[in-house]
């Protein structure tokens, strides 16, 4: 299904596009902060259909894409050690580090394994007591409860050969950093549905109020995104700036309390570097002192591994909406999914890969509306 015309709910989607276009008296600039939403928007050509009414900026919503280069280098370093089984979600394996990616480490004999869940990595540690098992704990708030539980269980079960290389990021501080930026153009946000399934939306309320910016908690299907967009446009046209929930079938205002409780026991807020953007204060999770024994950075002394990003990759400009992926000089030539310069070209949820795969040859809106 490349285009909306093939989508089952095409009629509903078309009606929503029509209503958005009717409601907008000018072009409004919206940002989604969810790689899944970016994928849907570009794949279905929603941005083309809304052209003139809405400009979509694809924010830093792909955790693979924002994992800083030096964390990749640290992963590569660990994965190359004989005494370590390095475990990761599948989409981190092709993210380029300074010298190579995890897939290349595996080709050279490093033990790199893809796991579906952090609990699989913990299980691997229990079955291989003679090896150290490290899990690459990346993700937004959606993934944090899973990674927190793996660490919690490791302590509970007395598994000492398990640790996590943490590169967790959180959405609200990134929104604030973007809004504080002098060249900010974002007028409303679509907040990520599953991040809010875990965290709820109370932490977005002060942001909406302070920066006078509508924030709509939104799902990731085409109709969800169009509904969320319509809600944002209605607020903007009426001069309102509230947090509203489009994704009612999964999200409650308070979120998932048991998940939040465990996350707050295992993790604490830390400053975190975002690839292409730089350090954002208190924008990530790190392990608390209580769980320091499970911190791969401390366990294996990785602090000295530092890295500077390639100046040729303009991921940072893409992630904050300064340029569209196709405006990067390297796009599609020196940088493509087979030979990526930066992470947004790697992940299927990255903005550059989405444009490369779905929007490169599109010259006209795919659907008459």
């Amino acid at each position, binding site marked *: *299904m490349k285009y909306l015309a093939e989508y089952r709910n095409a009629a509903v989607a078309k009606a929503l596009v029509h209503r958005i276009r009717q409601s907008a008296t000018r072009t409004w600039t919206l940002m989604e902060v969810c790689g899944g939403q970016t994928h849907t928007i570009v794949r279905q050509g929603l941005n083309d259909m809304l052209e003139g009414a809405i400009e979509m900026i694809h924010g830093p919503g792909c955790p693979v894409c924002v994992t800083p280069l030096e964390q990749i280098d640290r992963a590569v370093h660990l994965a190359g050690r004989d005494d370590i089984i390095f475990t990761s979600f599948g989409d981190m394996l092709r993210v380029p580090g300074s010298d190579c990616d995890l897939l290349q480490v595996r080709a050279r004999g490093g033990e790199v394994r893809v796991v*579906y869940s952090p609990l699989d990595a913990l299980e691997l540690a229990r079955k291989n007591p003679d090896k150290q098992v490290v899990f690459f704990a990346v993700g937004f708030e*959606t993934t944090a409860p899973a990674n927190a539980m793996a660490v919690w269980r490791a302590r509970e079960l007395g598994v000492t050969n398990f640790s996590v290389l943490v590169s967790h990021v959180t959405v609200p501080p990134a929104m604030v950093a973007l809004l504080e930026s002098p060249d900010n153009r974002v007028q409303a946000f679509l907040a990520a549905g599953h991040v809010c399934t875990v965290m709820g939306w109370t932490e977005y309320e002060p942001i909406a109020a302070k920066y006078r910016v509508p924030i709509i908690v939104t799902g990731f299907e085409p109709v969800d995104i169009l509904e969320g967009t319509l809600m944002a446009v209605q607020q903007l046209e009426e001069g309102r700036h509230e947090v509203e929930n489009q994704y009612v079938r999964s999200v409650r205002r308070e979120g998932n309390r*048991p998940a939040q409780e465990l996350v707050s026991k295992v993790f604490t807020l830390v400053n975190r570097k975002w690839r292409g953007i730089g350090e954002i204060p208190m924008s990530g999770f790190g392990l608390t002192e209580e769980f320091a024994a499970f911190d791969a950075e401390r366990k294996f002394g990785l602090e000295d591994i530092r890295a500077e990003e390639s100046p040729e990759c303009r991921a940072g400009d893409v992630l904050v909406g300064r340029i569209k992926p196709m405006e990067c000089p390297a796009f599609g030539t020196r940088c493509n999914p087979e030979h990526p310069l930066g992470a947004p070209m790697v992940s299927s949820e990255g903005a550059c890969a989405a444009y490369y795969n779905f929007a490169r040859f599109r010259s006209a809106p795919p659907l008459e509306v």
Partner: protein
Amino acid sequence: MCLGIPGKIIERHEDAGMPMGTVDFGGVTRDVCLAYVTDEVSIGDYVIVHVGFAISKVDEEEARRTFEALQEMSQLDELEWMKDVAQKSLSGMPPERRA
């Protein structure tokens, strides 16, 4: 990456005190941690599962619709990892590492 897959709880058990369940994702089954939804779900309920953890309960119609939409949009990466890992654990691992 934050998408999650809807599935049906077909069995419940405990693993050293942790609430777990077998969840059916359109024919692919696997163990899922139910700790974060344990008070609100029972066998037969549908949940959104993200990297092996149920994060919310959804109704059946919603689960079916979401699963189909994910399939149509080729956004079932997580299911692919799941299958990939399941196959490896059966055939790809050296014999001494098999469960």
